[in-house]
Every structure is written in structure tokens, then in C-alpha cells.
């Protein structure tokens, strides 16, 4: 199983809704997710675990016994699966500001919801989802900045947005959430060249698209 990050499609929405219902208290009907993906198809991403046996077969593997066959069939009826080979373990739901009377007329994006299933944390998934989404918001919709809200008690998320992704805190919004908790309102300016996700691999080796990938010479 590999962890895949990829653009979300309509086929992922039910699994995203399921992940959201498992992780967060702010929930939405499917139509709201559809509204996102059908208005800004490039803005949302998912993280999935991808079953490699759909790509290739391990020849040493024993033929699938009835037990594993059964397991495979059952997994499909679990609502966290977007398709038989992929289980959704995280998502980011992004949009452009579309309030007809916005406070600020500069085109800008907003993160409606982002979460990663507890058992898949500490792998940098939320950061990767965020970087892909920010890049697309900037590239496809010309977003000059992106904004989001985070619970003041959510230290892990605050750390990610402020320290890793360099968001700045604009203000505290009192009783923003239904349970009356305050929210930090945060914002990040977007510059396309600085957002290329692979930059954050921090590798000294960069593919120049020319060298033969199979040659023996060392870089």
C-alpha cells in the first residue's frame, strides 16, 4: 500500500464525507461537497492508501486464499473506500471566495475543511494536501491569497499552518464554531513559483527531464 495524494473527483466525495463525519464536528450534506467539486474542480485533493496489487502481481505471493478474498470483498462495502483499490484517509476541500459582496474583491481562496484520519497521522499528509491545493488555487483561479479558520485549541493544526506553511494569524473570531469555541482566522499570500510542491522535498537532486533515468552515471 502506498500513500497517494491526488486531485479529488466526484467519485471521492462520499468517502470524503465519510472521513469528515469521522474526524470533525462540522459536517455537510453531499450536495455541498458536489458544489465544491463542480465549481472549482481543481481545488480539492484526497490522500488515499493505494493497493499495489492492482498495478502488479507479486509472483512469490501465495494465491489469494478464501479469507483474504473475503476481506477484499468486504472492504468494498466500507464507506471509506472511494473505489475498490483506494481508501480515503485524508482530504482538503478548497474553494474560491464566491460571496457576491465579499469584504475583499481580490480573488482569493478558502479552505472549507481539511482532515486526516487519526491512524494515518504523523506522515505529513495534511501538509502535502495543503501544498497541492494551494498550488492549484493559485495556478487555476489566480488566487492571490488563501484564508482559513482553525480552532484555538487545535495546536497541531496551528503548528502546521503557522510554522510549516507560513500562514499568519489575522485575528481571533469569537465563538466562531457551533460549540462557541473561538477560531483563529489565518491567511497566506500565494506566489506560484514559491508553491511548486516538489520544492519541499528539499532534495539536492532535481530531475532536469533530460538525463537518462536508467544510466549508470551518478548525478
Amino acid at each position, binding site marked *: *500500500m*502506498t*500513500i*497517494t495524494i*491526488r486531485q479529488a*473527483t*466526484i467519485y471521492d466525495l*462520499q468517502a470524503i*464525507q465519510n472521513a469528515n*463525519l*469521522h474526524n470533525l*464536528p462540522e*459536517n*455537510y*450534506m*453531499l*450536495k455541498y461537497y*458536489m458544489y465544491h467539486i*463542480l465549481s472549482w*474542480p*481543481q481545488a480539492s485533493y484526497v490522500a488515499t*492508501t*493505494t493497493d*499495489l*496489487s492492482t*498495478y*502488479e502481481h*507479486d509472483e*512469490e*505471493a501465495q494465491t*489469494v486464499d*478464501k*479469507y*483474504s*478474498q*473475503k476481506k477484499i470483498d468486504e472492504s468494498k*462495502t466500507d*464507506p471509506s473506500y472511494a473505489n475498490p483499490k483506494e481508501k480515503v484517509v485524508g482530504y482538503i476541500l478548497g474553494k474560491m471566495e464566491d460571496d457576491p459582496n465579499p469584504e475583499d474583491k481580490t480573488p482569493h481562496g478558502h479552505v472549507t475543511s481539511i482532515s486526516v*484520519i*487519526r*491512524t494515518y497521522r*504523523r*506522515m*505529513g499528509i495534511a501538509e*502535502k494536501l495543503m501544498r497541492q491545493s494551494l498550488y492549484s488555487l493559485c*495556478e*487555476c483561479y*489566480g488566487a492571490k491569497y488563501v484564508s482559513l479558520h482553525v480552532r484555538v485549541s487545535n495546536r497541531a493544526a496551528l503548528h502546521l499552518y503557522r510554522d510549516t506553511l507560513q500562514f499568519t494569524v489575522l485575528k481571533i473570531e469569537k465563538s466562531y464554531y457551533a460549540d462557541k469555541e473561538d477560531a483563529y482566522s489565518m491567511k497566506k499570500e500565494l506566489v506560484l513559483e514559491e508553491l511548486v510542491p*516538489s520544492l*519541499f*522535498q*528539499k*532534495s539536492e*537532486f*532535481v*530531475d532536469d*527531464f533530460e538525463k537518462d*533515468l*536508467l544510466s*549508470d552515471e551518478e548525478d
Partner: protein
Amino acid sequence: MSRRRTAGTLFQSKEDTNFKEALKLYESKQYKKALKLVDTNLKKKSHPQSLALKGLLLYHIHAANGKNEDPDNLEPKSYFQKALKEDASNPVINHIIAIFYRALPDYTEAAKYYKLALDNGSENRNIWKDLAVSEIQLRKYKNALAARLQVLNYFQGYRANWTGLAITHHLNKNYDQAEKVLTGFEELAEGKLSDPEFVEHSECLLYKNKIIFESGDVKKALKNLKEIEKTVFDHLSVNEYRATYQTALGDHKAASITYRKLLQRNPDKTDYYYLLEASLGIEQSNITKRLKLYNKLEKFYPKSDPPKVIPLMFLKADSKEFEDKLKNYLISKLQRGVPSVFKTLKFLYKNPAKVQVIEKLVLEFLDDLAQKSKLDVDPTITVWTLYLLSQHYMFLGDISKAEEYIDKAMTHSPTLVELILFKANIAKHKGQLVEAADIVNSARLLDLQDRFINCKATKYYLRADNLEKAIEIASLFTKNDDAVNGLKDLHLMQANWYLIEESEAYFRLFKKAKNALINHLNKIDSENIEFTPELSREVKDEIDEVQKLKGLTLKRFNSVVKNYKEFENDQLDFHGYCPRKGTPRAYISMLNWADGLFNQPLFMRAVKGMSEVYLSINDDIVNREASIIYKYSEIIASSASKKSKNKNKNKTNKRREQEASKIIAYDHDLDVFGEQFVNTDEPIEKLNELFSLTTDKTSVFYLKLSFLIYIIQGKFILAFQSLKNAKDILVDPSQAILPYYLMKLVESLKNNTDPKLEAIKSMVVKSISSVFKDFNADESFDVILTKFFKLSEADGLENHYFYLKSTKLAGKYDEAVATKILELINKGKIDRDLNLDELVILKDYVEANGSEDCYWI
């Protein structure tokens, strides 16, 4: 709206003025005010348009108080009938009725009346738009095309109408026409687009490119892609399309470069790696080349998962490279305390040699940690290592070792939620569902802010059939407003995971209660126990409980079905919205997604559950005379005096009212207990209605269920056809399931005495032998049994079950096999072989000595 414009406002009657005013009020949703005006019109003389509007207004007023949920509420329709009787060709009336059906929703009727309004001369051109939307929702693309052509004809100034027409051509597979329409607008708009319109423009250009590709002209698509590249913003799509086209044209070298660019943009997408390999012409068996490639890619993208994990798949278990790569991967994850490391390696467990390497490495690593001084080792690393070992042994079926390691880990860190969760998982596998739930709950109490662990606890309680505790916990995170719990919110938010689990819990409780009741009655019957009024009341309560659980099972499963119908209906607004917003590509995906909705596994899971209950209701109807429950229900009904009946009824009503507040699913829920599902004389019709929603008719489940329905209906040719198709798709046709169903078919043929079916029956008998070799319907079941059924030691519960059912059919119920099944269950085979519901069905069957009919679909 009116065709009689010539009359002019000067001569307009008072009624017409009122009607116009009422229409305005309707549009601003002031239904009650509008109704007053309409009623004024209808007081003195007839005004057909007002009659129609009254129907529509009543529908909206009823929507606010839930009256529309009542299937017997025909009031709005009665006004339409009256209106049509007086003026059937009035386009305003037609239009009003169309709007009603669209809201209902019944798109077939809506389209019919939109069309009628237009045919009757309505000059309201917007009706063409609404007609197009209804036709698309119905997937009648030809009709939609005719409507969209009119729309563009009338409203050329809007890009949405060009895009909408192009989409409709595309749906009709008129690729050339679709392209032409899109180009037509591009030419008109050349140089005239303003800044905010460029996003829409970019999407439409890519849409046209996709259409060119789908038309089959790949070269043209690639050329077009180059032309539009500068104007298009979405370079991810540009490059993905380009790579596909280059591959299709055989230019693999170029495709490989494109995939390298795509990887640089997103090195976390597994697809790209395999596509890159293919474009480089590397065979999957060429391990040396692949290793070289992935070593390089890992250097470029050290923070991504695929270049590290894919080699674990293709490297040989006994190679040094495999061990090295696995070690690097494992240890870096353990050191970072990644809880999911076992899950990501699970795919390797199909290969026993690789499992051994994993075990060796992890044990060595644990040893190293123990050797080092305590100061040098972060204690959490030891904990995660022990956790991994526990999961490892659990997967291999070594429960005692799994427990040993999880206990060790928990001694280190007793409050780590992940560890406690796994401890519960082990208990679950041992069949200790109640204990397992309590363990998860103890983890939940450690982190009350986390909804994930809250959901886990909820789910474990549902699996343990403790519904009260489950909803109590789930309600801590729902919006409960004035309700006593969060059940309504879970329905509103379409929490299918909860609904399906609760349905299945109700199903298990229903089965349990029904069996207990039957056992109780059998005892009373066989031991001649005196049926005192007290005992009568006791039995009556038990019967009521079974009925209630049966109703709630169907009701909850239906909540899932209802959500799927809602998803289907959710498309509606987007037929008009997407052409306006300029997102035709995403829109086309939506149509394809919606087409497959009722084939989704979760939907089928609900159908499966409902079919078990509907089939058993049908059995109850067919075998009413022989049923002991029916016998005692009659005794109770005839013996109770009218007075005591009323008294009891009042008492029960009070109790039910209290209960209802805890299980109510929707505002204005008129059938909280699901009685309308249970009190049916036509369970098979209801099942068929549900079942007909699915369009994929090739799954084993579909064929099994359709077989059962057909033999009940006496449609023997179709039943045979289902088995014939099942034979072709069964993974292992030697399983007992197929011969069992054949015997069942033969039995139904024998039991059927309809002389009109003689010819058909003998034809089916002949076909059976020709398709299923050696299966001779004229032979005795005894002979068939020895010929077709061979149980082996390794056979799972499913095979044992079908074998047992076959021996029952042959009149030789095999006690030894029944005992074996119970043995297997008690060995803790739960979950390894079956899901919980199948297990319940199986246990029921065996414990009732095969007398209670049950299904396993």
C-alpha cells in the same frame, strides 16, 4: 405564462388579476397568502388556472408540515385533475403541473407537462431550459438535445447556452457537432473576453480538447493541446492529457518526459510511477532496471511514499536489496512513531517469505533497542515496535503472541489510544464483542475531543448490539438541538456508516428476538403449558417486540436507500449550474458517477439486508397456516376482551411515544417504527422495486437475489438463466452454492402444480442438464448429494452452510456437519470468515435444526 395575450390588461377579469398576484406571491414563497387569493377566485365560479395553482400551493404548504411524506395524500393531484378536466390544453396549467412534478420529484411527468405546455403554445421560452434539465436527469439525451437547440436559438448571448448545447451533443456522442458549437462561441468571443471570464474559457478549451480526443482523432487532440496551452490555466490537466495522447500515438519517449514533469509537480501520485515505467518500456519482471529507476526517483523525491514502497513489491524476498529497503523504511517509520506502518506493509503479507523477513527485522530491532542504555532510546520507539509486532502476530492468527506484545506495549504506555484500540480489535476477533466495546470506550474517555475515537466506540457498541450506548456516545458530536439524541442529525448529515451499522444491529436483534419467541412458543406448545392471561400478555409483548425490531431494521436500511436517492436527486441543480459556471468536464464526470450510484457496494449492502427481511416476510405469508407465531397471535387476538384490548393499547401507546423520541429519524417522520414496511402483503413487489434500481446485473449477489425472487414468482426460465450466468462468474464454481441452488430450482419445479407451466418446466429441466453437466433433475436428491458435494477439511463456513442446506433439501439433515459448523464458530472464526450478519443467520439455522428458513444472499 399566458397565451391569451390579445385580451390585454384592459379587459382582464378580477380572477385573472388575482391569479397573477397569487403567482407573484408563489414565486416569493408566500404560499398561504397566495392560497387566500386563489380561494377567493374559486369561491364563486370556476377558474381552472387557479385550481392548478391551488394544487401546487397545497404541496408546498404540506411540505412544511410533513404531510407530503404520507403516500396517501393525493390532495394536490386532485386539483390538477379538476383543472385539466376544465381546460386540458391550457399551457399555464400544464406548466404549473410540470413544476409540481419536478419538485416531487417525478421527472418523467415533469418532462411530459413541460412538453405539453410548449405544444399548447406557451410563449415562456424558459420552459425549454427546464425541459432540457428534466430530460437530462432522465438520461433522455435525444430529447434534451432538441430542447437545448431551442434554448440556444432563443438566447444566443450567453456562453452557458453554447456550452450547454455542446454538452448535450457530447452526451449524444455527436463529437463533431459538440466541437463545432464550442468553436462557434470561441470565434464570437475572440478578443472580447474580460478578465473574470478567462477561468471559464480555460475550462471550455480543455473540454473541447477532451471531446476531440474522445472522437478518436488523437493527433488532432495533441495539436490542439499545443495551441491552447498558453490560454489554459490548468497545466496539470494539460500534461496528463498530453501524456495520454503521446502514449496513444506510440511516442513513449515523449510520454516519459511528460510523466517526469507530472511527478515533479506531484511525486505522491502512485499512478505516475507505473505509467512512467511503462513509457520507459521497462518490463515488470526486469527487477534490475526497475530498481535502478526507483533508486533515482527516491533521490529526487525523498519525502514521498511510492518510490520507497513500490520496490518492496517487486524485489524478491531473499534479496539483500529487499531486506535493506524494508529495513530503511520500517526503522524510519518506527523512529518517527508512525502508527500506520503495519497497515502500509500489509500488502506484503500475501508473500510468506517476505513476512518472515519482516518478523526477523522487527525482532532484531527490538533486541537492539533493549541492548542500548535507556538514556539513548526514546521509549516511544519501543512502544511502536511492540505495537507493530502485536499487529503482525494477529494477522498471522497467533492471538496469544499478539496479546503478549500489546500488553507489553501497554505497560510502557497505558494511555496511548492506538494501543488500546488494537487491544479491542483482538478482543473482537476472539468474539468478545461486549468487552471489545468497553475497551474502546476506555480509550475514548482518554481523548474526549477526538471524534475519530468517538466513532470507533460508537461502532463497537453497534457491533455489540448495544444501540442505546452507541447513540449516546455518537450524540456527543452531533447537533442535537431540541432532540433527545443525535439520530436526526446523523440522518440529516447522511452518515451512512452509522445508519448501515445500526440497521445491521437491528437485524441481529430482530433475529435473536424471533428465535427466542419461536423457542418459547414451541415450549408452551409441546409441554402443554397453560396459556394464562399473564402468559398471554408476556407472549404478546414478545410478538410486538419482534414486529418492532423487524420494522426498525427495514426503516434504517431504507434510510441508506433514501440517502442514495437524495444523491441522485442532488444532480438536478447542476444541469443548469455547470454550463453557467463553465465546468463541463467535472459535470460530465458527475453524470457518470450518478449513473453508477445504485451499483455501489454500500447501497447493495443495504439492499442485501432489506432482502433478507422481505424474503422472510414472504415466507411468513406463504407459511402462515403452519406458523406457530401466527397460531398464538390468533389465540391472543380472540381471547382478549375488547376492554382489556383498549386498556393495553393505551399502555402500549404511551410506551411507544416515549420510545419514539429516541429513534425518530426525521422531522415530521410519520412512520417512526417502520410499520409501513412490515405491514405489507406484497414484500416481493417491494423488494423488486428496490432491487430494480441497480443497473449492474452481473454480480453474484444480483444473480442470487434475482434467482430467489424468480422462483417465488414462478418465473422458472429466468431463475435458470440467473444460475447459468452465476456459473460463469463464480470464482470457484466447485463451491456448494451452485448445486444447492440447482436443487432448490428442481424442488420449486416439483412443487409447482400449475398445468399451464408444464411445457416450460420440462424445458427448464432439459436445459439444466445441458448447461450443468451430469446434473440430472430426475435423479433423487440423494444421488445428487453424493455426486456434487464434497466437503473438505479446509472448507470455510459458507461451504458448510450450503452443504447443510442441501442435506436438508434431500431430507437427510446432516447433524455432523451442523456440529462442525458450531465448532468452527466457537473456535473464534468470527470475522475471519464471515461478517457478523452472516454469522447470525448461520447460527440461527443450525440452532433451529434447519427448520427456520433463512437466506444468505
